[in-house]
């Protein structure tokens, strides 16, 4: 058998599979839609996690650590500390807030009456730091480093918030994997069942083909292509569903982001992940068809 004849047979099997798919448009459309919806659930969750991750990285610009110095710290000492910290790694920006400036800010915020009743300024000098990274681990390390300075009295940091966000993202990633695995099995089962029904509908054809010399490989091939095609189209449907959902949600996200002074928008699936979805759908369809055709053909022996 030549390579050309072999390739021709694969092409014929693919065409046969496509014709079988088109021969029952409604049943095929429903199967593809069910697969598409099943795949769009983990896809949607992945999009939520990746966008949340992207959004939390964007918040780095707004994440601040406030370092309160000991009340007795002199202004010159505080300024010297600020100057030395500015050159340290992990610190994007540092702003020195003197106790006088802090008092003025409080007065402006409407606490004037209370402050005038005090005999002296109770507020300490403070350093407001923007870290370069907002991961929980990096904020924790910066926090520890700052606490080692003798001038530092207390630190109000975003570490706890960052840790909670990271834990939430990790949980989301785990949930995505779990959902992907369960729905991958569902996809394989849906395809397998469709193929099983097809095999029974073509029982006569299969038996006649076997009688005149068809190998199981010859019989299996169009069914395998059918499963792969159905999975591929299911993946494409999931891509469309998630894309439309993002476009629809982005209107609300834009309004919400504007209130925070941000131009953040939900991102669509990137090209590698889109390809993974399509190829993954096709491979799962192929696997479901392969299992189904193997077990069902055994019934005919």
């Amino acid at each position, binding site marked *: 058998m030549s390579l050309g*004849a072999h390739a021709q047979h694969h092409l*014929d099997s693919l065409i046969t599979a496509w014709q079988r798919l088109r021969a029952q448009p409604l049943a095929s459309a429903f199967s593809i839609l069910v697969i598409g919806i099943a795949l769009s659930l983990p896809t949607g969750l992945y999009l939520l996690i990746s966008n949340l991750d992207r959004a939390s990285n964007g918040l780095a610009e707004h994440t601040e650590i406030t370092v309160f110095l000991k009340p007795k710290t002199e202004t010159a000492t505080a300024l010297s500390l600020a100057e030395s910290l500015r050159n340290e790694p992990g610190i994007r920006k540092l702003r020195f807030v003197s106790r006088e400036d802090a008092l003025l800010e409080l007065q402006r915020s409407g606490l004037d009456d209370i402050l005038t009743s005090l005999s002296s300024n109770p507020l300490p000098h403070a350093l407001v730091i923007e870290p370069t990274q907002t991961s929980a681990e990096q904020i924790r390390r910066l926090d520890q480093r700052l606490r080692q300075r003798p001038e530092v009295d207390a630190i109000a940091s975003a570490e706890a918030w960052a840790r909670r966000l990271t834990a939430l993202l990790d949980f989301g990633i785990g949930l995505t994997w779990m959902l992907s695995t369960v729905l991958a099995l569902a996809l394989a089962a849906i395809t397998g069942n469709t193929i099983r029904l097809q095999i029974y509908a073509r029982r006569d054809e299969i038996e006649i083909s076997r009688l005149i010399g068809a190998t199981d490989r*010859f019989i299996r091939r169009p069914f395998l292509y059918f499963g792969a095609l159905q999975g591929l189209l299911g993946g494409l449907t999931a891509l469309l569903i998630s894309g439309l959902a993002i476009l629809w949600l982005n209107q609300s996200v834009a309004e919400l982001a504007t209130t925070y002074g941000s131009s953040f928008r939900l991102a669509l699936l990137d090209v590698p992940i889109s390809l993974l979805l399509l190829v993954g759908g096709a491979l799962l369809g192929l696997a479901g068809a392969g299992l189904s055709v193997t077990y069902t053909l055994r019934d005919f022996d």
Partner: protein
Amino acid sequence: MIELINVTKHYPGGHVTLANVDLHIQRGEMVFITGRSGAGKSTLLKLIGSIEKPTSGHIKIGNEDISRLRRTTVPYFRLNIGMIFQDHKLLYDRSVLDNVLLPLHIREVHGAEATRRARAALEKVGLANRERSRPITLSGGEQQRLCIARAIVGRPRLILADEPTANLDDDYAHEIMGILQALNEGGDTILIATHDQDLIVRYGKRRLVLADGTLS
């Protein structure tokens, strides 16, 4: 070419269809296998065609003992045989041409070459003008001719025909036998299972009679 050595076939339940059958058929022979209904004619053809396996004994086609074939190699062996079935076993949702193309596709013959060979086979059985028709629209004789075209398109050297003229009137039966005889004259070995004694007498070929599971 075909050799059966002490072949026995039991079916579940203990019914013995063939008992200790010995048979030798030369290459290029045309042989009639006759006997009453249930005598085991179809079983004998199924054993030679490797559709069923003998309970005991050996069946040799050429130098190959087909009673020892593994399940996965049986299809490759069947490619060397043209089978004509009493009930035709046609694909009724396909065209006449598609039915004849199927054995070629199984042999990985495609495209123009496959179409040329399928048309030549249809020409040989007189169905060239019906290639676009569905088998259901053909008469019984035409369906049997289509079955012959499908059997010969792969150019096998052995043809097994199970009651090829059953349910056909004399004219159609003669037509079918004419085609099989022409193939035999071309060098093909042909085994025909039939209960039609007139047919056997008319063609005067070797006759094997099956009775009570034994050959005479």
